[in-house]
């Protein structure tokens, strides 16, 4: 067990980083905002951290800076984008990510262009990352319990209803977008700290797709959705290494199969099962109702 853990240390560490990225996507998706700006902040913070690291800035200062920058930019983006709804927002944020990619590739002196920045010190290990994931997950789980969770549900499914029960949808969205930016930045920074590099592969459409895949496979029904999604995405390539050049194909098939059987993702499936239990309890109640009970 110990040797297994040590052996797959980097996969496990990467999985934790992905979980934070998935959380970042999740907090906006949860309130019906289909933004993929997380990837943008992941990239901005990642390059920021890598560049600062080259100048031996203390790691904690880098994290602080990454959070500050993504928070501020996140807020600005949120104020700009909050009036867009649904897929328009998705498109704008995809364009934001792709634009960043063009910048990264062309601004070679700073970003290392298509190559990237390599050979940075590794600042955080698997246990450190685990601790961060636990803290974020607990905070999210607490945050979405009760009142806030219900508000998120109403934002996700019916804006007008949300407004009619006193929810300021604009404010909620700005909060969610900013929070998402913070988490995206944190994830990007930790990614560099864990791997010791930042490369242009980490920004672009396929990262958007990967991140979406995590959130959709895991589901947006509850905080454990992204945890499951990130775990799947981190381990699939490992488990499928036997398939050689067909690996991506096999991975594709697995994703399709999972989605066909659980279109709401793993978390949705879990909730559905719980719901099935609730329904069973109810039907026994109904049968016991006497006729005069109803017509009274």
């Amino acid at each position, binding site marked *: 067990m110990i040797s297994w853990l040590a052996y797959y240390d980097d996969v496990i560490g990467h999985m934790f980083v992905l979980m934070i990225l998935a959380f970042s996507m999740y907090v906006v998706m949860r309130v019906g905002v289909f933004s993929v700006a997380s990837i943008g902040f992941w990239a901005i913070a990642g390059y920021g951290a890598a560049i600062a690291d080259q100048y031996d800035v203390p790691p904690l200062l880098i994290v602080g800076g990454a959070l500050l920058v993504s928070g501020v930019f996140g807020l600005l983006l949120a104020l700009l984008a909050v009036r867009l709804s649904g897929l328009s927002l998705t498109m704008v944020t995809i364009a934001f990510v792709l634009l960043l990619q063009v910048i990264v590739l062309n601004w070679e002196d700073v970003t290392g262009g298509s190559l990237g920045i390599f050979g940075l010190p590794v600042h955080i290990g698997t246990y450190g990352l685990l601790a961060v994931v636990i803290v974020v997950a607990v905070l999210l789980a607490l945050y979405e319990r009760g009142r806030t969770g219900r*508000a998120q*549900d109403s934002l996700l499914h019916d804006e*007008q*209803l949300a*407004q009619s*029960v006193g929810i*300021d949808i604009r404010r909620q969205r700005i909060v969610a977008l900013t929070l998402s930016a913070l988490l995206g930045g944190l994830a990007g920074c930790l990614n560099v700290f864990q791997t010791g590099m930042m490369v242009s592969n980490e920004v672009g459409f396929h990262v958007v797709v990967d991140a979406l895949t995590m959130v959709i496979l895991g589901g947006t*029904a509850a905080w454990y959705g992204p945890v499951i999604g990130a775990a799947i995405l981190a381990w699939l390539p490992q488990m499928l290494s036997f398939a050689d050049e067909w690996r991506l194909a096999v991975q594709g098939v697995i994703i399709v199969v999972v989605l066909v059987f659980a279109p709401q993702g793993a978390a949705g499936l879990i909730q559905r099962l719980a719901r099935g239990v609730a329904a069973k309890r*109810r039907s026994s109640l109904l049968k016991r109702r006497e006729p005069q009970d109803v017509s009274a």
Partner: protein
Amino acid sequence: MSLLSIVDAQVRFGGVRAVDGVTISLERGNVHGLVGPNGSGKTTLVNAISGFARLHDGSVTLNDEQISGMRPDQIFTRGISRTFQSIRLLSTLTVRENILIGTDRARAEGDGRGAGKLLPRDAVNDRVDHAVALLGLEKFAGDFPSQLPYGLQRRVEIARSVASRPELILLDEPFAGMSRAERDELSDVLIEIADDGFTLLVIEHDMRIIHKICSHLFVMNFGRCIAEGSPRETAELEIVQEAYLGKQHGTA
């Protein structure tokens, strides 16, 4: 002093004057009826009060504070809640949770300016339990809305609005889809709520119910308020009979 005053309200959609210069006021503790032919602007008036439709002209004042121009959530915070003519429940939440979201953002009483603190959790739960019991939904509290028949979904919708204990409750055809016995049952509930000091504005086509629960009736046609007064007197008016009730329908 009236609880709510609407002065010369106008709502237009392109060329359609859905609400066309309505001036009415609602008195505290009363149940007000709002009737009128289909498309006469009743729902739009409720939308205008609750902030879902923009006024082109005129104003809405609640407790001397102008609320027209505010967002729906701000208006809710000031003590107005509403139901929708077409049912709006969240399929991912249970019946009880659907009712809870109506009260989650309710403010502690005594402030009225919308700046009060959110209600403590216990108080929220008490109010919701009360509303659940009032509308006879105890047995369905753990169900999901899609599993309920239409009539019960309506009750959940009403419970959500009532549970937050707002000063003014706007109900858009709450009796739709209910049988006569069920209507009677629900009308007793509404009377009880009014007796507790709440103010209601109820859109309804069933004149029998209107007569039973309302102390004051507004009649709309073509976006205007064409008559108001006690239900009995108002319903007798020829203009109301012609536009709304039809010839044979003199009495209930």
